[in-house]
């Protein structure tokens, strides 16, 4: 990987794309491009092999059935696992987050084997969590408070191999007061869809990880920051 170019792999948009998940690609491309970093994005459908030379892999949300299919095909394919061994960044939302774990709940709540890329285990909760979510991010990541929208019925238990991404300030998240999880450069969150839009700090963290840089030049204030501020005020006031 050259230091000024990033390859983004959008994994299985045919199965895992229901809530504007494409937004995460667009935000990463844009924030890289504005800093003179070129990007190349490949959309990998579930009948294609997952390339192993990507820098950032994005997984979106999906209904129960596509989630199960995606898990099965990604396990058989093995590309995402190899990319992980090569140090790639993986960012997954909602159903994508759950399937990174060792186990998640299927259509009838039955346990389904996940990818085992994060030490988490998800099952089906009593009640659907639908609404705005706000969380204070693990200080070690040095990212401002996150804001997003969640819509899931999952409950996720974190194992000793991961740390929670955030502590819930508003909303449900994992179900135990934490939200999301990360280990090394693999991260998942219950904020669904275009989670990076309102969280430019999180987008920049992924870019820094991919570029192996401690810092990136700041960008001028954008509408995303104003949106972020408005949403945080609307939820917390």
């Amino acid at each position, binding site marked *: 990987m050259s230091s000024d170019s990033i390859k983004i792999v959008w994994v299985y948009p045919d199965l895992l794309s229901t809530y504007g998940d494409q937004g995460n690609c667009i935000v990463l491309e844009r924030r890289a491009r504005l800093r003179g970093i070129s990007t190349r994005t490949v959309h990998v459908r*579930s009948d294609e092999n997952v390339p192993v030379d990507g820098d950032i892999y994005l997984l979106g949300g999906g209904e129960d059935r596509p989630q199960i299919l995606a898990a099965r095909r990604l396990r058989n394919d093995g590309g995402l696992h190899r990319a992980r061994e090569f140090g790639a960044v993986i960012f997954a939302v909602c159903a994508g987050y759950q399937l990174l774990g060792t186990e998640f709940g299927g259509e009838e709540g039955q346990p389904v084997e996940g990818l085992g890329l994060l030490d988490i285990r998800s099952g089906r909760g009593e009640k659907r969590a639908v609404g705005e979510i706000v969380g204070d991010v693990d200080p070690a990541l040095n990212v401002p408070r996150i804001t997003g929208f969640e819509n899931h019925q999952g409950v996720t238990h974190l194992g000793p191999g991961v740390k929670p991404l955030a502590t819930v300030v508003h909303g449900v998240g994992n179900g135990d007061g934490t939200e999301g999880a990360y280990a090394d450069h693999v991260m998942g969150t219950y904020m669904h869809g275009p989670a990076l839009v309102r969280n430019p700090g999180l987008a920049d963290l992924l870019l820094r990880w991919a570029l192996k840089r401690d810092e990136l030049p700041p960008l001028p204030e954008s509408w995303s920051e104003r949106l972020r501020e408005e949403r945080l005020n609307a939820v917390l006031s």
Partner: protein
Amino acid sequence: MSDLPLRAQMAVALGRTAAKMSRLAGRGDGSVIGGRIGLKLDPELLARLAKDRKLVLVSATNGKTTTTRLITAAMTPLGEIATNAFGANMPTGHVSALAAALDAEYGVLECDEKYVPMVLKQTEASVVALMNLSRDQMDRAAEIWLLAGKWRKALEAAPNTHVIANCDDPLVTWGASSAKSVTWVAAGQHWREDSWSCPECGGPLDREGTNWECRECSFARPKPAWILHGERVTAPGGRTYELTGLQLPGRANRSNAAIALAVASYFGVEPETALPLMTQVKSVAGRYTTVEHQDRTIRLLLAKNPAGWLEAFDVLQPAPGPVALSINAQVPDGRDTSWLWDVDYRILRGRPVWATGERRLDLAARLEAAEVDFTVVDDIDQAVMAVPPGHLDVIANYTAFQHIRTRYGRVV
């Protein structure tokens, strides 16, 4: 319908009174409250009102209200038609529509996608017309694969119901194909992001031209009886009809019209008769209406989800015609604006664009990322006054649309 049991007759009468009072109080057309009271008094009211009638249920993610209207227009030669013309598409609205036309032998009822199984069971409708399924506001709508599965079960259990369905939409085809008798209409599909996988087995769907088939199982596009190609419809037997006379614009409405022609023909109204009646429909519950205001001609387009936006873009005035966009996120709109990121706004580059509505900042962030030049304004008036006299297209989602409609005099 005078053979309704006494309790049902009372329920109808009280529901009507309530609807009338609601209208007098200026609170909409009253069909929801009227139906609610009727159903409270007689929970079997919908089934009773539907009895011995020939009913059509019309459902889809997009185009329900418009297609209902087109079918109703096409079927006027059959006499009085009961219909929920104003989009009250749940059982309360169905009860009101049927109660308002007790002597109508025919009824055309728009039906919310989730309610199709329940309403079909109660009404034993003669025909179910199904057009398209795509991602919608998911904090309030059901997941579409589940939804299509429920249609399958419901249609399988209704062997006397005939289905008229769009075979260009794989998910609709799957949902409809359990029915005992189906007329397939090739009505087109432009939003394809929700049909990459086989609904039957999850395998990849291969497409070639208009055809589609699963690579792994036998599920494939059935042979259509009616075919829409461009601005023409070919009927079974090969006769072709021009749709150019339709006043409702765009390919989505040609698609709706193709379905409507097939439904009317099922009841014996052939396209020669049906089409001229359909061309008289100019606007539907405010959609496509133009209003004149301060020397501006403002055209209102409703778009509630990504597939709907694609169709709204299809009917815009050519660039550099100005466009105002308005987005809310109230309960009927869905509280979640994530779907904006599934819409490709780059098509608006090169025009003056105004962004407004309660969630104008979500829109602004989206347009900025799409590199579309735009101006954020606090309300639609500012956009209207900012454009030079002439034409302005306005695309809005549900409550934003209603707000603008009310603002400019609710002209239908």
